């Protein structure tokens, strides 16, 4: 059963189009993340699902029921806001029970529900406090508790973690994931943080300029980005884009890399490059695919080792990022910290192109689909 269907939804203010025809459908229990840079329309889409903003065209269905013209309170949804939006004059308990009270749930049932939610989120000891007396993380929990108490069809999370400090954010992220696994709720979650998107989502919708650029599982989006924007947006450090000339090597198109020496590297789907021989394409290669030479990979089909000049190194503990330059573009490589890389020196690096992708340098579209 589809829990939420967004059917060709458009939204414009005057002549400005905010949403240009969004189509997304999610199953019950699915965790969907809308991710994109600010101004991409993700929050507008969220507000439209909630019914807080009217849409110009299209339909929204919740649990197979058309709610396009239904008021927010009748859509059976709950929302967690970035600012938490806790009612400042009410205690935590009153905050949680307000929605139930508005829906005329009897007091006894409300109390049972408050206890259930409070235990679930470990906020039982905070029930008598006012929001001002809570820390950021506690407010976050209360905000989620308020949403959970009503047991709606659909949960909307609007950048819920962006007001927390880095450490707490990671903790709450795990918490939300656990909660989702435990309760099996349907969640639509907006964020601009691609790590949040990768770690939490069942599926991700990457948005830009009011359009969904790609909808897929986190791994699909990471490995198989639909275009240059998605490739650059997802992953940290970002994917390397190397302008490379396609040359013909005994009938097989290969890509030419110019580092310390000129090397031709193979591409896993050479047939897709046939029409581009002699032209320059953008080769997309994740940093972890450019490493120190690893003996066990030696001799594999799409592995090439070549010398590069080290510009800067950034030790990150688990890995060391090595910055170099290939075909004039800055390139991030992820190497083992034990691999000696002096800035200015030339060292051997191993290029694994088995997961490489290519883009059209002008349109940014994938060429090898």
């Amino acid at each position: 059963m589809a829990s939420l269907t967004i059917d060709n939804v458009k939204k414009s203010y005057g002549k400005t189009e905010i949403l240009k025809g969004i189509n997304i459908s999610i199953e019950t229990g699915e965790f969907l993340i809308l991710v994109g840079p600010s101004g991409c329309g993700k929050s507008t889409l969220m507000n439209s699902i909630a019914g807080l903003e009217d849409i110009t065209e299209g339909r929204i269905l919740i649990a197979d029921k058309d709610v396009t013209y239904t008021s927010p309170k009748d859509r059976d949804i709950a929302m967690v806001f970035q600012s938490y939006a806790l009612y400042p004059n009410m205690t935590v308990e009153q905050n949680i029970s307000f929605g139930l009270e508005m829906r005329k749930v009897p007091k006894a049932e409300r109390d049972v529900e408050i206890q259930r939610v409070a235990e679930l989120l470990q906020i039982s000891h905070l029930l008598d406090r006012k929001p001002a007396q809570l820390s950021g993380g506690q407010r976050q929990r209360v905000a989620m508790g308020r949403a959970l108490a009503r047991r709606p069809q659909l949960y909307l999370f609007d950048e819920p973690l962006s007001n927390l400090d880095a450490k707490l954010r990671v903790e709450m992220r795990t918490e939300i994931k656990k909660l989702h696994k435990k309760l099996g709720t349907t969640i639509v979650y907006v964020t601009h943080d691609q790590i949040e998107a990768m770690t939490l989502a069942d599926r991700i919708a990457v948005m830009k300029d009011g359009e969904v650029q790609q909808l897929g599982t986190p791994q699909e989006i990471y490995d198989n980005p639909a275009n240059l924007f998605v490739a650059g947006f997802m992953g940290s450090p970002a994917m390397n884009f190397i302008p490379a000339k396609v040359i013909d090597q005994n009938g097989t198109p290969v890509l030419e890399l110019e580092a310390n020496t000129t090397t031709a590297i193979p591409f896993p789907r050479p047939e897709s490059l046939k029409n581009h021989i002699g032209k320059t394409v953008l080769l997309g290669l994740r940093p972890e695919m450019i490493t120190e030479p690893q003996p066990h990979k030696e001799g594999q089909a799409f592995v090439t080792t070549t010398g590069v000049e080290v510009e800067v190194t950034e030790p990150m503990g688990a890995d060391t990022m090595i910055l170099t330059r290939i075909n004039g573009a800055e390139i991030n490589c992820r190497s083992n910290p034990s691999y000696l890389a002096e800035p200015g020196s030339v060292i051997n690096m191993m290029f694994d192109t088995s997961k490489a992708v290519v883009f059209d340098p002008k349109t940014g579209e994938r060429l090898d689909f």
Partner: protein
Amino acid sequence: MKNNAIARKTSGVEKVLRLALYAVLLIMAFFYLMPLVIMLITSLKDAEEVRNGTLLSLPSYLHFDSWTKAWSGACTGSTCTGISPYFINSFKIVIPAVAISTLLGAINGYVISLWKFRGSDLFFAALLLGCFIPFQVVLLPMAQTLGWLGIASSTTGLVFVHVVYGVAFTTLFFRNFYQSIPGELVKAARLDGAGFFTIFYRIILPVSTPIIVVTVIWQFTQIWNDFLFGVAFSGFDSQPVTVALNNLVNTSFGGKEYNVDMAAAIIAALPTIIVYVFAGKYFVRGLTAGAVKG
């Protein structure tokens, strides 16, 4: 050692500066309090003493007769009831006018800040214009309107006038205060199932205390001190105390009773003085409350 010497020297200079500061403050306080002090002194003298003594000479002993007379015996025009009935009239006007204009301002501000509609900014701008229209401009049209409504020369009429004039200010106050309330609060409440008035009553109003205090003080002072509307639109038995005070001072049989005039003036000013003494700090606090996100 050297540091200590410098510290001692600075503290000497600081002491002198501090003294100078206090001197200036005292002079200012004296300057502002003088009229009140003179009024108080004069009201406690008897007529003889007022005529013979100087402005600043203290009364030989305290006469409270002039206060009694001002309250219940002095003549305003042809009636000699003191200013007490008019004092009560003022309350009859001020209390409903303050209550209604504050409530309307709160609802207006709530709508303009948190339920923005197409043209709500324009609506606010138009309303704001009301703050800049001088009283005199509306006197004639207002008289006409009150006539049409059948509430001319009545307490109701005066309440109406003050509400109409006050709404521009009260809306401005509440709108600015509510501007600092995150819109997500209203969104959350809507999703929780609360309606327009439930949200206002249960969520917005409980956090509005600082601005309610400011608005009530402002409106109370404005309406209590109003003379022009009072003199123009009141009937014989609905005159506010400001008008009565004017009549009292202008009515004299023989010599001018400055002591009674002063006592009456102090009585007329007392409610606003009391409001400021007791609620003044909330007023300042409330005025700045909107500026910092609470």
